[in-house]
């Protein structure tokens, strides 16, 4: 919730010139970002919000990046005290008119095997592949990890 408010606040406050968004026709892609990971970490969590402004349902079927061996879509959950991560092999559904946020409910893009260490301020090129909207090139911004919030770990208030 806090992060959602932050997203809204950012949208309101941020001048258009430095806003970080991509328009893919019917899909509005806002603020793709990756959290800075420790040195040597072989995985990076990527987050982005996707607003399907079209009249038809769509689906994010893949994420590609030349900066990592592969990018998978996953969902992390904690059930009965056990942390689990399941691949979203069907991609992520984007119902018409709705906003889907990778970052809530543990949903994340997992960059596996990055080609180098990425730190806050770096940018990671990627392509979002939609079933209907096609291939859209975006840039994931690497940002510092905020200490007491839980990215991709539910949108509960802290």
């Amino acid at each position, binding site marked *: 919730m806090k992060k959602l408010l932050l997203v809204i606040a950012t949208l309101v406050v941020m001048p258009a010139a430095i806003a970080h968004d991509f328009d893919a026709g019917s899909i509005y892609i806002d603020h793709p970002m990756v959290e800075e*990971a420790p*040195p040597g970490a072989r995985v990076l969590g990527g987050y982005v919000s996707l607003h399907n402004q079209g009249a038809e349902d769509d689906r994010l079927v893949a994420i590609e990046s030349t900066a990592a061996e592969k990018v998978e879509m996953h969902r992390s959950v904690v059930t009965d*005290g056990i942390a689990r991560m399941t691949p979203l092999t069907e991609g992520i559904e984007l119902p018409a008119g709705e906003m889907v946020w990778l970052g809530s409910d543990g949903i994340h893009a997992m960059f596996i095997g990055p080609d180098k260490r990425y730190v806050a301020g770096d940018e990671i090129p990627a392509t979002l592949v939609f079933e209907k909207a096609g291939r859209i090139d975006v840039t994931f911004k690497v940002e510092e990890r905020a200490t007491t919030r839980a990215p991709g770990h539910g949108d509960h208030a802290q």
Partner: protein
Amino acid sequence: MKSLRVLRIVLWALVLVVGAGAAYLFLSARNAPVDAGPAVYATPFTLIDQDGNEVTEADFLGKPSAWFYGFTHCPDVCPTTLSEMSALLEALGPDADRLQAVFVSIDPERDDVATMKDYVEYFDDRIVGLTGSLENVSAMAKARYIFFEKVPLEGGDYTMEHSASVHLADAGGSFFGTLDGEEPFDTRLQKLRRLIE
């Protein structure tokens, strides 16, 4: 009519008994972490810390400790828990000296000593990182009722399922309770304060 009254009395008596039982269970559950349980954290183990030194259970007794079991190929739950652990140590201020925070890799096949060093020190150099042979990590996890399991991913990769909470132990190695990522930061901070006071 009379039997109905008897029934009513019996039912009220039942309510009282159940209520008293619930209160007892509630109170004893609340007090449970204070009573020293079996000292599972004193069970022998041998692992390697992030500086390559061999360590045993003895190195972590005599001081309360907070343990998290995770792995470095983890995009969210593990880094979040470690950065929150760092924030908790920060919030404890000088009292943080009275607590030992430990991150144990349950994926020792990929998490070697150098990886662990980079990883824990990125979050907080007060957190000790432990790895070792899979056999030794498994033995420790079993003794402490910690769950972990390898789960294959597509393309020969794998991920780990693991106990998500931070487990607390007192200076004598008795289990003291857990910190849950879903509970408010202040609740976790208070639990740590109770552990070290």
